[in-house]
């Protein structure tokens, strides 16, 4: 302020960027707080998960929770679940999620909604692009109101399967709303970033599964984190699985109870169904925290009030099939990545439905103990699953906010992102007596070029040591348990009922990962290391798979250096 003679007069208004997660069910806005932490911002109503819903009553626009409430009284002029229609051909969309709100209609080849969005009686056809613009405009305004500063740019998260037309449509819709999209980033990667950007986080190589369980769809991804860089190894999607599938269970449960009492099916009445859905969702959310939850609806059908309760055990029993679909999707994506559950270091639960305790508990049982399950019900320090994507977007926004547009474009260009990745780990072989061991230095799926340095001990007495750099592959070793003495087993089978017996029979085999040394690459010697000394190894892998290797005694004068040529192009 006092130094104004130093500052260059700003031409364009200053860029101020936030992170936005834009979901089919809900959206969030986030920023980096003055203390440097990513934080999700509440809108005027105090919501951090802002329903992606717009509703119009006599020309007035309602947004978020207020608009969602209109699904009961004003469904025709309420637009919801529209994100996945953006930039898509009308013929290719699935309109199921919009069954209880404004239906998508075709305009040219794209999607629109016929709604009364002005004070007049006329029904207007509003494109999904325009709806998106209006939604983003409201989000932008909420952020600006909170921060007290104009917001004019954003990093927005998108699913991994968003194709170019969808991305372009989103960027254009944001621009209409006065938002410069600095970058679109993938939802699961944003979730990983939200965790990795915490001050206590360290840069470590890891394989992460992100399970994004949303409202109407669920998306899972396997992501390799190598030296702080992220690569998606596989994704799987279920466009019919999400919180709504669980809502249906609650709806059916209470509807049956109602029918028993009153001999009317509340689901057959549009408004009754809408009420059941809205209140049922609230009941289900309450079951994420408590062991009991109630539901109370005035005039559910034929003017009959309804109120009842459900406990968590009952709910989990009813939902077990759907829960299994979630965990199946997770296992499916690991298979797709040609990995094993034993390879996974972290499972990050993201998206609103990830609050459901049982789903994380089921995942806990699938993965080995060393796998961290990052969900509210399995880890106290877990971040709010509903906030991950927006937080990650805010982190990225803060990183590139000062960059020129051109700089950003060049940095995210395929010329820069398309990168060779190591097929196998590269590390050092250790032989001591009979035992051959392998210690990876660069993990498989490390993006190239890459460079890593490590220090190793030397034998107590010192002397010359041998460094053998090779590739290593991870194998799964299965140890069958000691078979039980036969007699005991037989008597067991006689006494116990068959159910119990089969359990007992399934004596757990032990599965573990072990390293196997594969191809040798180079051998080096460090001569006359002093007792208690250490040896440092640096391996640099070029994009063309050529290697530079250096070893030296820590603190020593000279180093041993050598290069390994890149492999000859293969014959085929």
């Amino acid at each position, binding site marked *: 302020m006092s130094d104004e003679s130093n500052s260059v007069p700003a031409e364009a208004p200053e860029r101020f960027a936030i992170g936005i997660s834009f979901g089919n069910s809900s959206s969030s806005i986030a920023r980096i707080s003055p203390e440097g932490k990513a934080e999700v911002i509440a809108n005027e109503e105090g919501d951090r998960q802002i329903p992606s819903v717009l509703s119009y009553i006599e020309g007035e626009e309602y947004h978020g929770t207020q608009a969602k409430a209109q699904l009961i009284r004003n469904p025709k002029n309420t637009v919801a679940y529209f994100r996945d229609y953006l930039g898509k051909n009308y013929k290719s969309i699935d309109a199921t999620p919009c069954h209880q709100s404004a239906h998508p209609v075709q305009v040219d080849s794209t999607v629109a909604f016929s709604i009364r969005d002005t004070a007049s009686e006329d029904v207007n056809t509003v494109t999904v692009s325009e709806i998106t613009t209006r939604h983003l405009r409201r989000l932008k305004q909420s952020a600006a109101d909170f921060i007290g500063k104009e917001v004019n740019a954003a990093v927005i998260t998108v699913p991994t399967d968003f194709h170019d037309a969808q991305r372009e449509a989103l960027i254009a819709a944001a621009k209409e709303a006065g938002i410069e999209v600095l970058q679109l980033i993938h939802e699961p990667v944003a979730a990983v970033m939200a965790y990795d950007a915490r001050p206590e986080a360290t840069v470590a190589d890891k394989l992460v599964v992100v399970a994004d369980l949303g409202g109407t769809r669920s998306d899972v991804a396997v992501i390799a984190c190598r030296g702080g860089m992220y690569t998606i190894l596989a994704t799987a999607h279920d466009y019919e699985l999400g919180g709504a599938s669980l809502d249906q269970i609650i709806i059916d449960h209470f509807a049956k109870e109602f029918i028993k009492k009153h001999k009317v099916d509340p689901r057959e009445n549009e408004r009754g169904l809408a009420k059941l859905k809205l209140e049922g969702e609230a009941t289900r959310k309450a079951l994420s925290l408590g062991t009991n939850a109630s539901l109370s609806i005035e005039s559910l059908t034929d003017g009959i009030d309804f109120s009842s309760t459900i406990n968590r055990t009952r709910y989990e029993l009813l939902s077990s099939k759907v829960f299994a679909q979630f965990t199946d999707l997770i296992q499916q994506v690991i298979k797709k990545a040609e990995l094993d559950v034993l390879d996974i270091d972290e499972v990050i639960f993201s998206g609103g439905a990830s609050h459901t305790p049982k789903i994380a508990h089921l995942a806990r049982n699938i993965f080995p103990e060393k796998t961290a399950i990052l969900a509210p019900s399995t880890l106290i320090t877990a971040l709010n699953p509903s906030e991950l994507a927006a937080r990650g977007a805010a982190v990225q926004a803060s990183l590139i906010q000062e960059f020129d547009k051109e700089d950003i474009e060049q940095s995210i260009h395929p010329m820069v*992102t398309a990168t060779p990745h190591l097929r196998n780990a590269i590390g050092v072989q250790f032989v001591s007596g009979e035992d051959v061991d392998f210690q990876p230095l660069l993990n498989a799926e490390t993006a190239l070029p890459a460079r890593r340095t490590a220090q190793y001990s030397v034998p107590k007495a010192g002397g010359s040591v*041998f460094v053998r750099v090779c590739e290593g592959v991870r194998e799964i070793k299965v140890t069958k348990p000691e078979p039980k003495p036969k007699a005991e087993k037989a008597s067991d089978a006689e006494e116990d009922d068959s159910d119990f017996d089969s359990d007992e029979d399934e004596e757990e085999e032990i599965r573990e990962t072990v390293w196997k040394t594969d191809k040798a690459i180079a051998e080096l010697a*460090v001569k006359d290391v002093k007792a208690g000394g250490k040896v440092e190894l640096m391996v640099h892998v070029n994009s063309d798979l050529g290697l530079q290797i250096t070893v030296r005694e820590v603190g020593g004068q000279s180093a041993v250096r050598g290069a*390994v040529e890149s492999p000859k192009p293969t014959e085929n």
Partner: protein
Amino acid sequence: MASAQVFNITLPALPEGWSADKDFKAVGSVSAATQRNLEPVGPHFLAHARRKRHQRTFSEDERIQAQQNVKKTEEDEDDEISEPEDPMMLSRDAKDWKAQDHYAVLGLSKYRWRATPEQIKRAHRKKVLRHHPDKKAAMGQTDENDNFFKCIQKATELLLDPVRRRQFDSVDEAADVEPPTKKEAAKGNFYKLWSKAFVAEGRFSKKQPVPTLGNEDSTKEEVEGFYDFWYNFDSWRTFEYLDEDVPDDNENRDQKRHVEKKNANARRKRKTEDNTRLRHMIDECLANDERIKKFRQQARAGKDKKRLEKEAEAKRLAEEKEKARVEEEQRKKEAEETAKADREKTKKAKEAAKNAAKKNKRVLKGAVKEVNYFVEGGDASAGQVDAVLGDVELLMSKIDHEELAALAESLTAAGKDGAAVKAAYAAQAKQLVEAGKLKEGELKTFA
């Protein structure tokens, strides 16, 4: 990135007989890579992108980044005192030090009153290094009087003395920022241009920090605070730097006193002029400040709003009263209607009872007629008929509706059985006698 992982694993000893040129032997190559897309997010990716775009290796990039960081800090440091030196200034006569621009001499023109003592000292060191007489001599340049070196010393001495520095700053016109003309301010730069002028003016304030002008979004309190501050401005600005030199020989004491008086007057005059100038400046800014107009409008709108709210409240009360009245009326009407309906109902019930009684009375009379007035064989005499009917009448007058109905029922059951009819009557008569409604023997025929 460059930091080493430390593994607690012991490397094997060098096998017997292993040898290689320079202790290195390539024995194989790395397996073919998988082509994948990196996710373009996070700080480490951005570093990767930088290396790739500028085709730098890790160490090159590290070196360049480090150099840039060093350069940046160096520049930051150097920049402060690296302005070009005006040849005219370099050839100044040190005797005329009072007229020199002390800041320019030290290369601090950009900073002026904002220069910190630290900066002044650093600038001094730098200038001395460059203009030290020894150095000049070594470079074959001669400046017999070391004039510019003396200028540097004078400037430093003055600027490091807070009192003398204030005296100079008070008249440092190069630090003045002219307030914008109406036209300039109207072009949309009102806040920016006026801010600059006030920030410059604020250097004279005894109270620090000085509130800033703000912008179109400033609150009423902020704006009012700003003008309050300036209309009560407490300035340390003095004008003795412009004093005429006072002759300091003792011989000319009158002359001395005269100059001193003149100087005092001049200082006073300048100070008054300066106060007026400042006041005009504030007036001018205030007069054109759109925010003041806005707040006035808002105040008016606020009053209007209060009035409207009051009216709305009155209307609401009236409406409520009317509503209460209508409701009361409605209630009364309903009450009346239920009362009426009740009355009707009782009336109907009464009528029904009456009808039933009539019917039952007919049964009573019919019963005696049916049994020929208790006469067996032949017609009953008129006297007998009268006596029986008289008794029936009397009995009827003494019993209530229920007894009547019960009696009628027994009589109907009795039918043409004279004895049964008589017995029914007799039973009823007995009851009445027991209840004290009839005297024993009053009913002759049913005795």
